């Protein structure tokens, strides 16, 4: 990757254009807008030619790492391969041209995508129906909690204002709960890294709306007491929410619906192969059990008795409307195509191979990196830093040497051509390194990752200074994040436009 330092604004030259539009004929233009409503001076956007634009963004792209570039051992992110046929399908001109408010009769093909994907996801997860409004995993969590609250409201059960969240949960869980107007109660993990059932019991009463669980949890451990937990939570009138961020190891293996979960979201950009796009767009459809179907958000696609598809646009029992139209249709197309390619034959390999890859890495590196929780993992696992981080106590002859940190390990991996793992999460450990390989990585790729991790462990002992300054081979070195936050520069500034935050 080579460093390229331009911003598009710096390529601008008065009089250049990059668009191709017909001239305005005689007649009215926006100049006719009354002066009190009109913009006084045109926006100071860049003036660049089309080749300038293409070269600029191509140069930018070459400073980026993606799944197509190399391996992402990124825990809880499921960075699997993004199939190319899915892109072609999402970009079919017919789908691209559909207005979201067209009459149902003119969009039967599109509606059948919703119906078919609903059926497939429901069968894969053991849920009854899905809503496709949510545009991301966190959006799905918020939507799921809205459904949970609506369910209790409809039963006249107004005092359920608490939601229980394990201390190992993704940060979005408590944040989503607060967004939904719920109070968060944290339940701690036991020595094995699982939800501590004895700590859970005293929290359960008639003010509990439900519990949010990630299974396997963020340590990559299957919550084997889930049956008991489900019985306890249901026993107090609460519901079980399944955070689908970690669904991949169960894809083709087991179904959250069978474990007692009532509501769940699925990250289509994780388990169902749609691209992450540098942070989005994704999609976070939410599935519910039979009792909760009426609470699903609107609009919602249904199949009519005559076999055509229609849209329910309002329903008094619905939790509401969570996005502008019908969710990220373009992402749904990709996920549906992936599921059809998997079919009943390949679906059963997906989760299993992901779990195989994770356990293989764990067993191969546990002599170099601290493994706080031993035994089988599912799709991911967590190390707690290096076993020998190179730290040395002060002696009469030498000063104290501080150890190499997880951050240093992560940054050095970039030099070896890998993305970094998820670091400092979960917060149960101080030096967390969370690794998730996914099923689309070959043994050769994983072996080369293992070799790199072992080399870094050696470097920590022999050349820690170099590790602390890593990465060395990337377009930029470590950025000064403190300065960025202390004096934020959030927009392009030239002398005349300078805005200091």
């Amino acid at each position, binding site marked *: 990757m080579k460093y390229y330092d331009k911003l598009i604004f710096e390529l601008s030259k008065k009089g250049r*254009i990059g668009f191709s539009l017909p001239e305005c004929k005689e007649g009215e233009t*926006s100049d006719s*807008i009354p002066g009190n*409503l*009109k*913009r006084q001076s045109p926006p*100071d*956007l860049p003036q660049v030619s*089309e080749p300038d634009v293409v070269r600029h963004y191509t140069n*930018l792209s070459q400073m*980026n790492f*993606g799944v*197509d*570039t190399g391996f992402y051992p990124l825990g809880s992110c499921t*960075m699997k391969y993004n*199939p190319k046929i899915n892109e072609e399908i999402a970009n079919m001109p017919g789908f*691209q*041209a*559909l*207005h979201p408010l*067209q009459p149902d009769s*003119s969009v*039967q*093909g*599109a509606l*059948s995508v919703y119906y078919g994907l609903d059926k497939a996801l429901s*069968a894969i997860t053991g849920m009854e129906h899905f809503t496709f409004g949510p*545009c991301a995993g966190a*959006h799905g969590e918020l939507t799921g909690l809205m459904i949970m609250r609506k369910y209790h409201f409809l039963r006249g059960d107004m005092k359920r204002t608490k939601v229980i969240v394990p201390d190992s949960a993704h940060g979005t869980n408590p944040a989503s709960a607060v*967004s939904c107007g719920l109070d968060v109660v944290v339940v701690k993990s036991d020595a094995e890294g699982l939800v501590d059932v004895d700590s859970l019991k005293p929290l359960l009463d008639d003010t509990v709306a439900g519990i949010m669980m990630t299974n396997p949890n963020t340590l990559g451990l299957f919550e084997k007491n889930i*049956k008991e937990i489900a019985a306890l939570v249901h026993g107090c009138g609460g519901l079980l929410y399944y955070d689908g961020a970690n669904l991949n190891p169960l894809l083709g293996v087991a179904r959250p619906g069978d474990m007692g979960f009532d509501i769940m979201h699925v990250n289509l950009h994780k388990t169902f192969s749609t*691209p992450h*796009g*540098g*942070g*989005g767009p994704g999609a976070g459809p939410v599935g519910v059990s039979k009792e909760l179907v009426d609470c699903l958000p609107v609009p919602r696609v249904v199949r009519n008795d005559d076999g055509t598809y229609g849209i329910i646009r309002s329903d008094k029992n619905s939790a509401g409307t969570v996005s502008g*139209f019908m969710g990220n249709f373009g992402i749904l197309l990709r996920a549906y*195509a992936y599921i*059809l390619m998997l079919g*009943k034959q390949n*679906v059963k*390999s997906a989760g*299993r*191979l992901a779990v*195989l*890859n994770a356990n*293989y890495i764990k067993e191969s590196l546990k002599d170099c990196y601290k493994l706080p929780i031993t035994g089988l993992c599912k799709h991911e696992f967590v190390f707690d830093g290096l076993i020998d981080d190179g730290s040395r106590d002060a002696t009469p002859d030498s000063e104290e040497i501080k150890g190499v940190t997880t951050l240093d390990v992560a940054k050095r991996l*970039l030099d070896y051509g890998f993305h970094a793992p998820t670091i400092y999460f979960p917060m149960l450990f101080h030096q967390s390194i969370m690794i998730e390989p996914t099923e*689309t990585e070959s043994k050769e790729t994983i072996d080369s990752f293992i070799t790199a991790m072992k080399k870094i462990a050696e470097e920590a002992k022999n050349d820690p200074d170099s590790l602390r300054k890593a990465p060395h081979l990337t377009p*930029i*070195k470590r*950025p000064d994040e403190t300065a960025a*936050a202390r004096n*934020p520069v*959030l*927009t*392009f500034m030239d002398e005349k436009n300078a*805005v*200091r*935050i």
Partner: protein
Amino acid sequence: MSNFAYFPHTDDDIREMLDRIGVGSVDDLYGDVPADFMYRGDFGLPDAMSEQQVREFFEKLDSKDSKLKVFAGAGAYDHYTPAVIPYIVSRSEFLTAYTPYQAEISQGTLRYIFEYQSMMCILTGMDAGNASLYDGPTAAAEAARMALSCTKHKTRILISRTLLPNVIDVIETYSGYHGIQLGYISEDKGQTSLSSLNSELSKGDVAGIIVPGINKYGVIEDLSGYADAVHDEKGVMIEYCDPSSLAVIKTPGDWNADIAVGDGQSLGIPLCFGGPYVGFMTCKKEYVRKMPGRVVGETRDSDGKRCFVLTLQAREQHIRREKATSNICSNESLMALFVTVYLSLMGKEGMKRVNDLSYGKAHRLYSGLLETGLFSDVFHRPFLNEFTLESKIPANELQRKLMDAGFFAAIEVGEGLVSFCVTEKRTEEEIDALLKTVKEVRL
């Protein structure tokens, strides 16, 4: 294990890996999962399709959708997408990247987000913006919550009845669960009523108001006096705006709004049945730390090179958990790239041109429809590319007749009221054909 193009494992690979782990079979890796949870069926799935079969499956579905000429807006606008954009956006270095937490290998993503934030500030006349949100309506709902934290100890948000219905629906849903009290500002002849605003403000406890720049009727709202009124009550003004139009109409900054939100779809993003689009949010500098979502900032690396990072993360869920400004932990990054490339190509002049063309064509249709004698203008207010008329033909009948002739037009936006939208993409021939169809509708 099945043999499948996306899974690289050979039988030998699997055996070697199992040996190192020390288990006998892949299913042994699930030894901690209670046996009755191990699903034995086919997950209701059909036989795996080949790539060609999948392509044909979707081509067939695609053929079941009617290909209509779009003369409708209501929050989704059919503007032309220059060829460069899909070419750039589909580059796999952008497409298959993760969130740019590792700045050293994500400068591509970080730089375009920085450019995007800059461009959205230029368009809206605001100081700072975030890296994007899901869509316009959810951005408006997030802004309502942000207004509460900007003002402290207030609980009410006033929203204009002239906002698009889906924007109101999403604000109502979010606010209802979050505990925000909503009040409504009524409309007066197609525009948000200033006197209704003043009377609602006088009830007190108002943290903010949400009003549209261009409203559900297509009317360009005159927002003079709104900011002063709400600032007098120590609340913030949020404007919901169409970013394309801001090249030619007064900006949220011009109206002295505090927060601007909306959907970037009108900046060349294909309709795609409603998504993915991109919500945007910009604000005055004093409110930057109250914003939801990711923000990219400029800094230097250890060699002194200019570079970009995700910043102000102390607002976000992965640091703050339940104390975060929002639960949002992503953005619509690739769609922000889409918008950034669009605005780079269009530039200062192109954005004026696209609005001029749309203005001219929309006014041509407007005059033509009035000439048929089947419509009347009940508002008589300035508009850009979208307008509303009272129709003598029942709205659903009109829409159906137009659909039969290959048009999607005439969205019902009120009792007897229908809206039309004309972008630069529509041709004069198409406009004349639509008018001809209307004239043939018998009353």
